[in-house]
């Protein structure tokens, strides 16, 4: 269980791993996530969305970006290594339905959780337009996979190195204004991106679903650390979400809460990298 079957570096800080997890592979549905630990005594529990699953192999695929100590540590695990703790699938699955025209907006690593959702939306008979946004061409992932299922794929980069030199909200707005007005929009990516996607579609009154990735400890409703304000009510991302109506989410509060531990996390990351560097140097000297 939890053995790493395959590992690939997709871009500078982004890794794909396939893990042996037969039960999770069997039960998972689009929109759900797992929680893992790289050390089950002193390690933290981090939520990651499930990008894909293979029930025959009994595996799930996760795609993660190195942003802190645990993701850095995870990126050092090799094929054959075993993750000390992996639990899931958690969260409510995406509501898949025949909506008509659906636009899937993904930013950065958000392509990973979007992939299974877009697949299922397509299977449910929707016309699927995918918009992928990234800082630069090298950071775009899963383009080939998305192209295979999307009716239309639009790429945006901040620096114009690939596709449109634009933010994802530009083509989204154009689609909302066009004759091919979407019936539904799903946005997954950095909180700021989701906030502006929701702001873009609001005047058009197009239902916009967002998938939130807040700070969590247990992921089963026990701690409430993941809570967000939705329609002036407190909701738990882990058991009420992770998907919510983007027009009702208080993004400013959510973004503020995501920064609660930034300084401590930065120092943990720095310690870890420095320690790893010292150990590496020691090995070289021996």
């Amino acid at each position, binding site marked *: 269980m939890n053995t790493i079957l395959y590992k690939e570096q997709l871009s500078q800080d982004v890794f794909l791993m396939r893990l042996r997890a037969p*039960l*999770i592979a069997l*039960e998972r549905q689009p929109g759900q996530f797992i929680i893992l*630990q790289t*050390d*089950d*005594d*002193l*390690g*933290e*529990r981090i939520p990651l969305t499930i990008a894909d699953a293979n029930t025959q192999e009994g595996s799930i695929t996760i795609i993660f970006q190195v942003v802190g*100590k*645990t993701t850095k540590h995870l990126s050092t695990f090799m094929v054959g290594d075993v993750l*000390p*703790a*992996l*639990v*899931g*699938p*958690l969260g*409510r699955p995406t509501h898949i339905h025949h909506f008509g025209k659906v636009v899937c907006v993904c930013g950065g690593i958000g392509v990973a959780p979007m992939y299974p959702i877009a697949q299922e939306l397509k299977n449910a008979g929707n016309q699927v337009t995918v918009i992928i946004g990234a800082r630069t061409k090298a950071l775009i992932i899963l383009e080939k996979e998305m192209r295979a299922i999307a009716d239309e794929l639009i790429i945006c980069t901040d620096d114009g190195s690939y596709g449109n030199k634009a933010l994802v909200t530009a083509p989204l707005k154009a689609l909302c204004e066009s004759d091919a007005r979407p019936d539904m929009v799903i946005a997954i990516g950095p909180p700021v991106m989701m906030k502006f996607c929701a702001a873009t579609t609001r005047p058009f009154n197009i239902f916009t679903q967002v998938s939130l990735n807040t700070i969590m*400890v*247990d992921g*089963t*409703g*026990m*701690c*409430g*650390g993941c*809570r*967000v*304000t939705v329609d002036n009510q*407190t909701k*738990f991302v882990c*058991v009420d979400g992770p998907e919510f109506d983007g027009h009702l989410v*208080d993004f*400013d*509060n959510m973004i*503020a*809460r995501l*920064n*609660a*531990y930034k300084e*401590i*996390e930065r120092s*943990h990351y720095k310690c870890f990298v420095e320690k790893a560097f010292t150990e590496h140097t020691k090995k070289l000297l021996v």
Partner: protein
Amino acid sequence: MSYQTEGALQREAQILLREFAAIADGLKVKQRQKIPAQDMPVQDPEIRSHNMEEVALGYSFEQARVEAFRCLQCAKKNCMEGCPVKINIPLFIDHIAKGEMEQAIAVVKQTTLLPAVCGRVCPQEKQCQLHCTLGKSLKDVDCSVAIGRLERFVADWERINNKIVIPFVKPATGKKVAVVGSGPAGLVVAADCRREGHHVTIFEAFHKLGGVLRYGIPEFRLPNSVIDKEIETLVAMGIEIKTNFVVGRTRKLTDLLDKDGYDAVFVGTGAGLPVFMGIEGENLIGVFSANEYLTRINLMKAFDKNADTPVYPATNVVVLGGGNVAMDAARMAKRLGAEKVTVVYRRSEQEMPARKEEVLHAKEEGITFLLLSNAKRILGDEKSCVKGIECVQYKLGEPDASGRRSPVVIANSEFILDADTVIVAVGNGSNPLISQTTPQLNVNSKGNIKVDASQQTSLKKIFAGGDIVLGAATVILAMGEGRRSAASINAMLAANEN
């Protein structure tokens, strides 16, 4: 009363023991009444409020025997009526008085599985000790025999002296029982069903076992080593353990029966869904449920500088609530370096649901209590961080449904407390995971699983107990429900046999 060291208490008890041991058999009621109640030795408050080690150190052998001499061995045995699992209290205390510790613990273990835990966390002054004839004769519940401390003593004696006997397990029946959740209810069911020879698997969502005993109750009140030892015993009995397994998500509850070959399932998932107050500012940075705050520290070890899970740096903490969890959170905040910790509770001290000893310990450790007050809104700064809390004063009115005098707001009595952290400890709702993923299971309006007198749910072969049925209650009540559930499961499986 001034602070007395462990050694001083033991020396006093030695003298008393010499005096009474010789005449033990002939002790009259009047003489027993005059034996001084034995204080629990504790760490010095000044020292302990900066460490995680257990506060109450436990009776010495001498103290335990002297305390046991206080028991009148009355005919009524009212204490047993107050015990949810009906421990034969006079009998085990009589064994302690005679110095027969092995027999004493054997008596306790006839009816309870986790005496080292219950001796520490039961609200004895509201259970066995409330009914103690000695306490009544002295017209003070605080003068009752310290039954809880004696229970803890014999359990610790057994553990420390490596006298734990692995319970006898009957020959394998070939039947399988799934236990969902490894809190107090689940542990009892696992042990009781295993004893009958059934194969038992415990499914736990977290990476470590113990449920609320692990993530909720702090080390300074219930050391992890105590829980670890209990679990070691279960493993030695041949109970299978699956951590990182969320029944309902990793596997459907009904799949355990239909696909995985289990013959019965017990659901003991607890009351893990923190209740917030629904006031303005509750989602500011620096507001935590007590569950989150304590889980970060207890389960995820955030107090350890080598742990990855961070804990919010708090200097001025307000804790909302008056139960054991509120006391735990307040005292934990102090230990993690908070300069000022204030407990805000809307009734008076008398109505506080917390164990008396915990309130006393909190006060000794410098926690401030602001009673007859309640939070109205939490104030934030420009960075969305907590900077204070507006409270309003209350007075006590008529008794409510719980029999406690209900608090009534005093108009225009608002005041503001400075704070950088607010910990909400006003209770827990029922965890929704099982009911969300098992829609055919009957739950009440609060989300608690409905059961009949045998703990059977609306679904065949599925039983439930503990806080998921009761709402947030106590460890001992959860264990009592576990015991009943296990009896029903064992009876059902035995009937299937024929």
